[in-house]
């Protein structure tokens, strides 16, 4: 079997962090792949919630959008959107939230709104969506983001969702109920918050990548944990399940749709 790509390693590493029976609020892209991979491997009873209101969904192929029909057809039930945000997320009934972003800082605060000033942005990004409240209310969050000095930055252009703010317990003094980012899964390895300062530090590397390479990929002086683990390489079951899922997905998305006329 061909060795895993960085993206596959990220997805598999994230999937492993999801306990069976946990309730996950899923975003589109890598998080959706990771959550469904967990469901297809070690966590068959994981509950996946997409913000479109589909709860307990078990899609055969990954959705392109957050509201593909596949999600509704394979869901345990479908609720209106205000209900998913109020009665489930805000009410504290979500264990894990998954977030992506354009920028992250050393305390896990995220930007998905603008690059440059808000009123005259260099790049207008899609914006917040569910992120501010997922970041606040999910019991814990995971962030998936490929590294570059443009994405892992010294300071954000805009704070779309709160991580640990300025660290050192600042988040604990806010009204956010969730505990914040538990891990950042990037393409060099995994960052986790320091127990006291809450600054993200390097705690695990993918095989073949050095701490120096990780530090070079990050736009702030990245601190290293005392012990840096190596993420176990994906096993055959994980890789096969992920590749089959991606293959099914590509095939499904290639299928021409009948124009309804």
């Amino acid at each position: 079997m061909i060795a895993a790509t960085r993206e596959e390693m990220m997805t598999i590493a994230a999937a492993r962090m999801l306990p069976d029976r946990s309730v996950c609020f899923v975003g589109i892209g890598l998080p959706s792949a990771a959550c469904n991979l967990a469901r297809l491997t070690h966590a068959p009873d994981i509950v996946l919630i997409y913000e479109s209101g589909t709860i307990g969904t078990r899609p055969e192929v990954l959705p392109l959008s957050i509201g593909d029909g596949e999600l509704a057809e394979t869901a345990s039930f479908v609720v209106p959107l205000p209900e998913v945000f109020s009665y489930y997320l805000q009410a504290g009934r979500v264990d894990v939230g998954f977030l992506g972003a354009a920028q992250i800082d050393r305390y896990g605060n995220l930007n998905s709104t603008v690059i440059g000033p808000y009123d005259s942005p260099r790049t207008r990004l899609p914006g917040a969506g569910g992120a501010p409240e997922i970041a606040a209310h999910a019991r814990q969050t995971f962030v998936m983001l490929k590294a570059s000095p443009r994405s892992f930055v010294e300071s954000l252009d805009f704070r779309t969702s709160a991580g640990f703010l300025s660290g050192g317990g600042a988040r604990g003094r806010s009204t956010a109920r969730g505990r914040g980012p538990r891990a950042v899964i990037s393409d060099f390895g995994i960052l986790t918050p320091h127990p006291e300062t809450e600054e993200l530090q390097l705690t695990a590397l993918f095989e073949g990548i050095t701490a120096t390479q990780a530090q070079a990929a990050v736009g702030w002086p990245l601190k290293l944990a005392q012990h840096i683990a190596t993420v176990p390489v994906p096993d055959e079951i994980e890789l096969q399940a992920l590749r089959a899922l991606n293959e099914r997905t590509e095939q499904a998305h290639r299928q021409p749709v009948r124009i309804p006329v």
Partner: protein
Amino acid sequence: MSPRQTLTLAEAIELHVVDGASVALEGFTHLIPFAAGHEIIRQGRRDLHLIRMTPDLVYDQMIGMGCARKLTFSWGGNPGVGSLHRLRDAVENSWPCPIELDEHSHAGMAAAYCAGASRLPFGVLRGYIDTDLPKHNPAIRSVDCPFTGERLAAVPAINPDVTILHAQRADRSGNVSLQGIVGAQREAALAATTLLVTVEEIVEQLPPAMNGIVLPHWVVQAVVHCPGGAYPSYAQGFYARDNAFYKRWDAIAREREGFNAWMQRHVLEPRNHRDFLLGLKETA
């Protein structure tokens, strides 16, 4: 009073959507009222205050064609694909005209619709905590709970002049039923002064709905029979989301010239939604 069902889509838009109006074409990925959006473009409406949680392609098109002066939204991308290039061009370069943003989170906008549907002045949520959104949007404020003292976020109710939805079916009396992913459509519908609905089919009588979503005839002002009216979004039970089209849109909308040419050929020239669909079928 029963809603009017004898209007064409063009007549309904002409009657209910005026320049300067606040208009919500809702539908969260599913049941997006594309046919109605295209008709608004054909009729050259201007200065609209567009409201939608996820602007999607339909607002990318309306904004690029110069219909909008203001946008209330919470996530403005092409889902799973990337940017909405026309929205970006309007925000970054004021092309074809400047656009004012009233930007929220999904939870905030959902709360604002719920308040609007209930005719309350504002929605309340434990939201926007330690984000920069309130700094840039004066409409996001806070309120202290009178019972516990907790500081909560407050957003003004959204009450569109007109909400436009697409639904699976209506009956002869004008009751409208929708199912599948229903987003915040019920709230957007009940928050509006005027509700216009396009439907896949009109039946003699809807089956008993139990807990299904029905918008009763006395909250609906007009029902228009418009098969395929959500395409390239979808109508569960009728046709699937055209994900390939959503991917193609990225290239179509990237440059102004290509966008204008596409809109001219596929939206402005066809007389109605059926011709739009037939035109796409030919080029497919």
